[in-house]
């Protein structure tokens, strides 16, 4: 007699080597290819909330004075305030709302550059969501990464967020006119930056007055 026994559940292991950030990196590479094909130089502008990312972009647009040859992707959680501020400078703007996410990712940029008119665009400025931590884990495919910090954030921003500053191609210290009032020593911040990233130009800027903006443009390899 053959007895058919019901087998208990079989327990098994599946071994994997699934890199969870690889998908973003692959998409970032695709973005870079598309930008290169279209001969567009893209700059990822990161920085904490209120550091002056939008003011820096406005100042760059004013000085470069290239009208619609500059495209801007403005990342924000839910509002279009930044996109409206940037549009005043004559650039071609697309707003990306991340909803509850604290950073742009390569997929959002992929959608943005596919949904945007890119004919005639030479430079694409990407304003990341205000945050010094999360964007560091999500490259977008930009050619250069700028990190903006400001004296009003206190003296420890660079020491506290070394990773993002190490990855930066250009470091901008904004609101330099307020250093004295804030009792922040910009040279100490510069020293902190040099310690972990000696290669990135460290530029002291007042985005509202335009001080330091030509140096930022030069550091990005553009001609104003």
């Amino acid at each position, binding site marked *: 007699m053959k007895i058919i026994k019901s087998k208990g559940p079989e327990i098994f292991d599946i071994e*994997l080597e699934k*890199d969870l950030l690889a998908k973003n990196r692959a998409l970032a590479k695709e973005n870079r290819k598309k930008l290169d094909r279209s001969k567009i130089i893209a700059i990822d502008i990161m920085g904490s909330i209120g550091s002056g990312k939008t003011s820096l972009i406005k100042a760059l647009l004013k000085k470069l004075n290239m009208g619609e040859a500059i495209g801007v992707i403005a990342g924000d959680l839910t509002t279009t305030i930044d996109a409206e501020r940037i549009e005043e400078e004559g650039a071609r703007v697309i707003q990306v709302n991340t909803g509850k996410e604290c950073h742009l990712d390569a997929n959002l940029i992929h959608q943005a550059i596919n949904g945007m008119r890119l004919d005639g665009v030479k430079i694409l400025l990407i304003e990341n969501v205000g945050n010094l931590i999360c964007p560091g884990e999500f490259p977008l495919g930009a050619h250069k990464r700028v990190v903006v910090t400001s004296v009003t954030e206190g003296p420890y921003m660079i020491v506290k967020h070394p990773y993002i500053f190490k990855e930066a191609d250009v470091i901008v210290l904004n609101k330099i006119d307020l250093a004295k009032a804030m009792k922040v020593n910009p040279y100490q911040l510069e020293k902190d930056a040099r310690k972990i990233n000696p290669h990135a130009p460290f530029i002291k800027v007042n985005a509202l007055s335009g001080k330091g903006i030509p140096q930022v443009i030069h550091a990005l390899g553009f001609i104003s």
Partner: protein
Amino acid sequence: MHEFSIASEIVRNVLDVAEKNSARKILSIRLDIGELSLINVEQVAHWVQALFKGTMAEGAEVKIKTIKAAVQCQSCGYKGRNIPDSRDIVQHFAAFICPKCGSPGVKIEKGRECMLRKIQAER
């Protein structure tokens, strides 16, 4: 809050792989997360468990292995670990400077991982 996007990616992958292997229930998963990654492991575990609810992975254990940092100095050739046993964020600053010669030219070889390594399931 990039932990939420990472957790969503984990859950998507786990359910996808489990389905392909005809699993009926997932008992546990194991992740490798580097100590130099900017990922809060408690938050990742919390979100993964929240997203597992109502799926075959509901109640599965989330095991996280911390991968220790290892660097190689481009100037003096020092190879090894470079930070003390602590999650203190200010000490992360030290992770980018060679502990032997003080050069900032260190290449991070280990400690930035964010990997799904194992799924234990039932079929």
